[in-house]
């Protein structure tokens, strides 16, 4: 692996409101990670190497060549770090669906902050909290104040708070794709910047990668995954299982449908689509075998959770973004 420039690139990775799968996915490139260290110095990666906010703050602006930021912005600290890293990085990459589209944590945008606190700390079968104590940004103790970051009203995407050059979607992004992207980036082979260009994926939809056969039939009844054994080779959507494939960007290799399970849309919207949910509503609206409003209503009632399914990973990128 070679770089076009002589001296080594400086790379950073940061983990915000996400599960850690992104960092693990980066480890999935396996031994190749040693190749990476051959051509690039890791100058910030909290889960891996010993550099601190203070060091980053001390770097000159745009010192970092490529910064991979994974996770959404759920609290004040994550926003501060995002701004800091934007300042210090030539190229900022939103890594993983949480950073790109909010990911699963953004499902919290369907609920209120208060509701979340109540469910976690008050109204909960194992919680014992007679004094109704809730976490506070500042807590007084005999020895001094303790501080934890402010919990925001909703999950924001990286591009909601800073400018982003590239997006690498996926929950998590698939290692091989990522490796190609990293090679491209570090090798200097890159698409135009400052446009949040999606890389390490294609513009097409999961159906493009899915091996299952489409028989061009309309759906007569919706079923849920635990209610039916799908035919192995046949399109799951046509079998009445809500599958996000048609509305989902490809790049994953259609792994879930290979495991006989419908796609849940983890790579976010495909093509030029921004709002994955409404795209899916359009698709669903087009393939039902109904001729009357009654039939339509009946079939729609068979869909258990349209919002949570169509926006499973991308509520942060939806036009409406959150509950009122």
């Amino acid at each position: 692996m070679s770089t076009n420039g002589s001296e080594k690139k400086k790379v950073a990775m940061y983990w915000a409101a996400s599960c850690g799968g992104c960092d693990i996915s980066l480890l999935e490139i396996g031994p190749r990670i040693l190749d990476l260290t051959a051509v690039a110095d890791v100058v910030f990666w909290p889960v891996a190497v010993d550099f601190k906010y203070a060091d980053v703050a001390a770097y000159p602006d745009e010192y970092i060549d490529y910064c991979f930021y994974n996770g959404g912005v759920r609290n004040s600290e994550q926003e501060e770090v995002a701004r800091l890293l934007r300042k210090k990085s030539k190229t900022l990459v939103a890594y993983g669906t949480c950073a790109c589209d909010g990911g699963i944590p953004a499902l919290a945008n369907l609920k209120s902050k208060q509701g979340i606190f109540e469910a976690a700390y008050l109204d909960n079968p194992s919680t014992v909290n007679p004094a109704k104590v809730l976490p506070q940004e500042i807590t007084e103790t005999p020895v001094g104040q303790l501080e934890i970051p402010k919990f925001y009203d909703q999950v924001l995407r990286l591009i909601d708070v800073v400018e982003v050059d590239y997006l690498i979607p996926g929950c998590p992004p698939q290692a091989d794709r990522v490796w190609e992207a990293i090679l491209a980036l570090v090798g200097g082979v890159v698409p135009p910047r400052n446009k949040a260009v999606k890389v390490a994926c294609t513009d097409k939809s999961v159906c493009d990668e899915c091996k299952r056969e489409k028989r061009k039939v309309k759906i007569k009844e919706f079923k849920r995954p635990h209610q039916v054994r799908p035919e192995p080779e046949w399109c799951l959507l046509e079998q009445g299982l809500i599958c996000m494939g048609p509305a989902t960007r490809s790049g994953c290799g259609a792994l879930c449908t290979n495991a006989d399970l419908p796609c849940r849309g983890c790579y976010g919207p495909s093509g030029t689509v921004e709002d994955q949910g409404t795209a899916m509503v359009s698709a669903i609206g087009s393939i039902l075998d109904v001729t009357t409003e009654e039939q339509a209503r009946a079939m729609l009632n068979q869909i258990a959770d349209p919002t949570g399914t169509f926006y499973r990973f991308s509520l942060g990128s939806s036009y409406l973004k959150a509950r009122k």
Partner: protein
Amino acid sequence: MQGNGSAGVVGNGNGAGEDLRIGVFICHCGGNISDVVDVKRVAERIRKLPGVVFSDTHNFMCSDPAQAMIEEKIKELNLNRVIVAACSPTLHALTFRRTLERAGLNQYLFEHVNIREQVSWVVEDPEAATRKAERLIRAAVKRIGHLAPLDKRRIPVHRSALVIGAGVAGLVAARDLAKCGMKVDVVERSPFIGGRMAQLGKVFPTGEDARPLLSKLIQEVVHDPNVTIFTSTEVLSSVGIVGDFRTKVRTTPRGVDARLTYVGNAIAACPEETISEFNYGLTKRKAIYMPHPNCYPQMPAIDWGTCTKCGKCLTAVGGKGIDLKDEPREVELHSGVIILATGYDPYEPLYGEYGYDVFPEVITLQQLWRMLDWEGPTGGQIQRGGKPIKNIAIIHCAGARQYQGISMPQPDGKVKDYCARTCCTAALHASLEVKERWPEINIYDLHQDIRTYGRGHEDYYKHASEAGVTFLRFDGHDLPKVEKDLRGEAPLVVKVIDQLTNGREIEVPADLLVLATGVVPHDISELIDMYKCAIGYDSFLLEVHPKLRPVELAVTGVFIAGSCQGPMDITECTAAAAAAASKAAAMIAHGQVEMEPFIAQVNEELCTGCRTCLVVCPYDAISRDESRGIAVVSTAVCTGCGTCAATCPSNAIVQLGFQDDQVLAELNALLDREAALVL
């Protein structure tokens, strides 16, 4: 939903990449608009918008001088976009598009803003109306920058027509097309042509005998070298599009040829009988038959469904002129346009509806007309159950103008709620005929309304009243009841709540009860699927627009003639047929069809071949290129509904003229901050 094209610079107007030069022309409509909307103020404020180089008003924008002015401005100011704010685009969009063409500007670089029907005529407060008008025009200014020039679709048309159905409408259409020198193929399912006209006996409003009229028409058609008629023939399948339809048809042999001389013997010899459709079941006919003495062709045909091929007819005629082999032949007909003239069926009352099928005294109006026919089954006598007829009751709207929950529902669960139009006059016509021949017969006419709408039809009503027909009026929610008359005065008694005598219940004795039955479309479901015909709520074929395009279907190149479109009398059928013929002729004569360019277009980069759009297209205009794994739109078949564009989960399909970026630009402008200010 980004789409392409930017607000600032033109995606090649008439020369790529030049700046927007928009002309805005606002119409007073002689006060219709300007009395409410302060058009001057709007024009001034619009003039300040980026890209707008001209903005002014005119008293009548659709007037010749105004159009000349637009033309002139386009040239003088080198405008590359034109907005006209006036009446509804349904009225004048075309007018102004032509103006653009004349000025050498692509006619689709045009926006029509509706500030009359949807602003000045509906908004009371002048201030609010003015703001709304401005808001809508601002939106058009934003949208128009995203428009790209488009070309009409042009498709060559094969110089021939296919007419399906050889009833009076089909024949008229065929005749008129042939007269224009077009080749015409006529396909008729039954072995005889002429359709139902011959069954009518006399026809209003002239009272002439139907058959001579019909024969005259038939002679004209069959002797025209341009016309080929296929009897006993049905349509199997049709492929292709306007200009180039390939229709596969199957012809079953007649079983009889010109060498047959002893027709009478043949028919007499036949042992097989079945009911006579022509006489609505009043009589029977043989398996080898002629529906009526002067049917056309003047030669019998064998009804293979009934024939047992016993060969008795063959021996009776000495073996000449009859062939009992019935292998059908299939041919493919090539035609540029298609005219559907598939006609109607009289409504067949349900079992027990007004006692139909229950009491032998209950018949339909069609059956009555067959009885009145001197050459008909009864030799012109009215008879039922042998007894002399003293009282006849006629009930209108049997199978028409019904109300859900009142009348018995049809098999499809619906009721026949539309007016069948022809039956009122036909019923009165029949009453008069009866009164003329047997003045002593009492006729009771039970109706909801009398709808004698056509020229001369009202006279039948007048004369019938003069002739002493008793009229009683019932409410469609409270239908007459038909019962056995226990006092034995007449076989039946009809009980009706009579509106004319303020709702008194009146009992009418009836030796004969005639149901003036409505009209239903002939069953052509295969054709409907084949040609993707739109169907109205009444399940008749649905035209594109009742006023502007009354004899065209949405599928270009397919026209409709006569009562397949809805209940019509012969006058109307022939008029419609003539209209359809001239439309078709024009299309053929022009040699090509022009279609609006607002069609679907696939972005091959984005298309994932997910096939969602394939099941969506009502016209099967989208297919999948398996080699490249992407969707492909047939530009000729696409009707431009845009449903696929809304469907594509990858936004890989756009509808020209209604692209996402265009609609969104409009939406943005309507909702942005300035718009808020002008609300």
